[in-house]
């Protein structure tokens, strides 16, 4: 694999595994055990286990299947919803997608930034992730609930990382990917 892309894959995986998110998951598991919510604790543990396996499985090639990525995203969203309880809602449309390979660690960091940007404004976060396949390729739309607001500075790190990943990807003449931002909406287009 191209070295720059390999390094970027490892950095993306490290960013996921060593993220704020991971420590919050561990914290959630501990708190649920402490308060007697054993079933929920095991559920969070199981979700995190699946996410971690997915991250490790994709680390070699940096690629994943659309179906796996969608499941990964759903596991992430369920786990965040359990954490924030009534403060967060999400919609994944369609519920399952079937398509070929795609680069990993592009969609989830954007969804994560959108979730937290939506929570930051203090009312219920409603995050919508939509997948559309057309003649031009595939399009993922991630929309937060903070209408007309951009992602606050402290959550922009994820977006910056994805942009760098896309830049390296495109530089090596693979099927081009683009990320456009407009207010609370981010669109990733893959011409595969």
């Amino acid at each position: 694999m191209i070295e720059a892309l390999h390094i970027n894959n490892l950095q993306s995986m490290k960013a996921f595994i060593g993220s704020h998110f991971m420590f919050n998951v561990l914290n959630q598991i501990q708190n649920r055990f402490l308060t007697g919510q054993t079933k929920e604790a095991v559920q969070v543990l199981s979700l995190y286990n699946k996410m971690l396996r997915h991250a490790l499985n994709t680390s070699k090639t940096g690629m994943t299947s659309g179906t796996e990525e969608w499941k990964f995203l759903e596991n992430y969203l369920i786990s965040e919803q359990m954490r924030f309880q009534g403060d967060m809602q999400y919609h994944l449309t369609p519920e399952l997608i079937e398509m070929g390979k795609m680069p990993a660690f592009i969609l989830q960091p954007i969804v994560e930034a959108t979730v937290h940007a939506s929570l930051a404004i203090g009312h219920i976060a409603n995050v919508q992730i939509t997948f559309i396949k057309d003649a031009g390729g595939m399009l993922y739309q991630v929309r937060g609930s903070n209408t007309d607001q951009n992602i606050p500075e402290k959550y922009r790190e994820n977006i910056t990382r994805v942009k760098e990943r896309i830049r390296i990807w495109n530089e090596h003449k693979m099927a081009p990917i683009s990320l456009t931002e407009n207010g609370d909406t981010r669109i990733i287009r893959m011409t595969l």
Partner: protein
Amino acid sequence: MLKAIIIDDEPASLRGLEKMITTFTEGVTVVATAASATEGLRAIKTNHPDVVFLDIEMPQKDGFELLKSLDTINFEVVFTTAHDQYAIRAFHTSALDYLLKPIDPEELRNAIQKVKNKKGHYDGAGVKAYIDNISGQREKQQIGLASSNGTSFVHLDNIIYLRGDGAYTYFFLKTGQKITVSKNLKEYERLLGDKGFYRIHKSYMVNLQEMKKYSKGSAKLIMSNGDVVDVSKRRKDGFITELAEL
């Protein structure tokens, strides 16, 4: 019996820490829990706690903003955070109490013991100094320097330069004082690197406002107190660029 308040936006964290306190510690009563900074402020004013366990990251108003809105801090603050490298480093350097989530029962017991040892003599100066540090107002910025005699809070403007020697750092102040801290210079480079200080040598970091004369030939820098410090070969170019920007 110590009165504790827990402030955290996550319901599970509130309940979890409350349960941890009752399960793993003695002599502490949780008098209130709050799921936001606004609720927390109200709880502090009503309950006059001995200790507040304060989550840093909360939507809208975070833990620091809550503390900034208080005129005086007459209780102990134990910050709680899952993972914030910058904050952790700064807490460590400023000698503030913090607990990393998931919370270790032993660390929780230690934090509570520290509060008990103060026997009601709570001093919010350290926390205030830290809040000033992160508020970005250089003239108000202070740093907590923990030495064997206690913690000294020093305005950054009072520091002329720092000298590192292995695991120790010596602070040379305008007052003529020299404070020894058992942390290496690298720790302070991370903390002060963007606050008008520059590492000119493996053993020296200087306050750029306190330089008097730089001799290019000998690569020596004379500081405002007359002390002469070396600029290393490796850092010379970067330092000259930094000077050009002053």
